[in-house]
């Protein structure tokens, strides 16, 4: 985990004589560059890249980020995040408008968006309440079981979820006269949501709630002996993660303009885990890196495969091989590779340093 802490900074600042750097100065240069490139991306990239590659990356990154929050800070690998996202997606389809006029309720956007997020958060919280009774592999098993139950339920229930075909023509509301499904608005919409959820996770990870969650991860018994209700803390983490996943789910449904059982199917559930693991579960930027790799492979692997004379439908093989390679060489995902490379660079510069962690 990160070693810079606000408490330390606050204490240190009382001793330092020179004024503390403002927050603008504390943001490292690479972040400024990435941020600038992200802002002017519509000038560089074409609509396909904006909408299909980056839009999708940000969305999957957010859903995987909710898993990273639970797994990285809470030590709980939950496979329910895609289902929670799908629940929110179904929420906007059912409460708002869709091509299935008689099933959708046609509520106004300012009502159906928050209600969809709340429903998804309640769903995630209930699953969390069941899952926190288990640990490790059993958490994975129980959330996977509930995720697959949810998939079959949406496929078989026609009264609410419209069964196999789901809902089509689910589009974002025309706010401020903008069609948010056009590539450039959609790019900024997903970018904004992704940045906000990233910042929220970074901020909360250093809040009392986030610190205590990391404490619960490292020593649940000790946390109880400090007066924390460990179970309640874990469940609250599911609630927080569910909100992020829900926002991602709504954006995903808007991007595809449809939601169906396939959206919450087991392959989609597993993909979120793959994305989070490939990117790295230790820092909130990991899921976005993982999502970019996944989306690039998914988008361009058919071309590559066809180039080798193989069927384009074998893209899953390529994704699987990429997953194996990364996990084989770095259990911490791409972030782990990056950390090790930086460590090597630093040791090269400073021959007196041993191979220690810090």
């Amino acid at each position, binding site marked *: 985990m990160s070693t810079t802490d606000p*408490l*330390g900074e606050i204490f240190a600042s009382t001793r330092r004589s020179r004024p503390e750097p403002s927050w603008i100065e504390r943001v490292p240069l690479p972040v400024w560059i990435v941020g600038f490139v992200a802002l002017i991306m519509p000038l560089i990239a074409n609509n396909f890249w904006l909408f299909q590659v980056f839009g999708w990356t940000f969305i999957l990154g957010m859903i995987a980020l909710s898993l990273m929050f639970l797994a990285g800070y809470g030590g709980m690998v939950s496979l329910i995040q895609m289902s929670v996202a799908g629940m929110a997606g179904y929420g906007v389809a059912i409460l708002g408008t869709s091509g299935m006029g008689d099933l959708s309720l046609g509520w106004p956007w300012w009502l159906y968006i928050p209600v969809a997020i709340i429903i998804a958060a309640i769903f995630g919280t209930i699953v969390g309440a069941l899952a926190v009774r288990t640990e490790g592999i059993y958490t994975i098993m129980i959330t996977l079981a509930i995720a697959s139950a949810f998939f079959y339920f949406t496929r078989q229930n026609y009264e609410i979820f419209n069964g196999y075909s789901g809902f089509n023509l689910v589009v974002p509301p025309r706010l401020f006269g903008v069609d948010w499904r056009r590539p450039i608005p959609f790019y900024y919409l997903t970018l904004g949501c992704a940045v906000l959820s990233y910042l929220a996770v970074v901020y909360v990870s250093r809040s009392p709630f986030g*610190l*205590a969650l990391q404490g619960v991860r490292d020593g649940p*018994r000790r946390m*109880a*002996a*400090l007066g924390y209700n460990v179970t309640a803390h874990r469940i609250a983490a599911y609630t927080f993660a569910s909100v992020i996943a829900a926002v991602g789910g709504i954006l995903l449904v808007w991007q595809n303009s449809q939601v169906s059982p396939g959206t919450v199917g087991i392959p989609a559930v597993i993909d979120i885990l793959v994305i989070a693991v490939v990117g790295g579960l230790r820092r909130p930027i990991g899921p976005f890196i993982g999502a970019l790799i996944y989306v690039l492979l998914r988008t361009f692997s058919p071309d590559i495969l066809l180039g080798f004379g193989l069927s384009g439908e074998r893209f899953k093989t390529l994704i699987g091989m990429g997953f194996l390679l990364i996990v084989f060489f770095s259990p911490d995902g791409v972030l782990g590779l990056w950390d090790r490379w930086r460590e090597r660079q630093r040791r090269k510069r400073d021959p007196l340093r041993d191979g220690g962690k*810090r």
Partner: protein
Amino acid sequence: MAEASTLNSVASGNALELRGVTKMFGALAAISDITFSVRPGERRAVLGSNGAGKTTLFNCITGDFFATAGSIRLFGEDVTTFPAHERIRRGLRRTYQISLLFGGLSVADNVYIACRGVSRGRFSLLRPRRGDPLLTRVGELIEAVNLTEARNTLVSELSYGQQRQLEIALALAGAPRFILFDEPAAGLSPTERRELIEILNGLPGHIGYIIIEHDMDVALRVSESVTMMHNGRVFKEGTPTEIENDPEVQELYLGDGGHSHG
């Protein structure tokens, strides 16, 4: 009815009251029929050889394990069925024999988590603000256990002795009324031991504690009463001098190298 019994215990004025506390692991009784009480502010040592059930007793008092039988009252309130965090919020604290600290966090963060655990805002999503009284308290606690220099050090990088001191800081967070110290001196150097004795003797008078300690020199210098345990039962109770001079105790415990432990 419940109120009447509460009043009764308040009248009897005990900080901790154990009646027939038993803990079974399968068919094995780790502790059986433990009955004793500790007055507020009283400092008691629990002695006994390895496997006498001292740590199990602590775990039952704090709620890490639930007792199989018997009742535990804390400041007059029956807490037998309370989960650990509820007991902690009533002023009980403990330290662990094997350090259970948060290695990936700094010293200040560890103490902050401890202070936050027994105050409001445990679920707060807002970071502490400059000048938060809790942060001042964190600084005081760190100073009380002589860790000011190491305030921003990761706990995994502290020396063993420093980790033991941090354990004590965590136990002092909030407003403790009764603390259970599980072998705080184990593995400490003579200097660190002296520091520990100073810290314990310097605690405010209203804070009582029970200390498990193998080192008789430490145990007898920081306690005013002693409970001797053997095979999961209370074997003897008395003042340090009584226990030290008791022939049965000498044969059982002091005789076979009690001094050489730790």
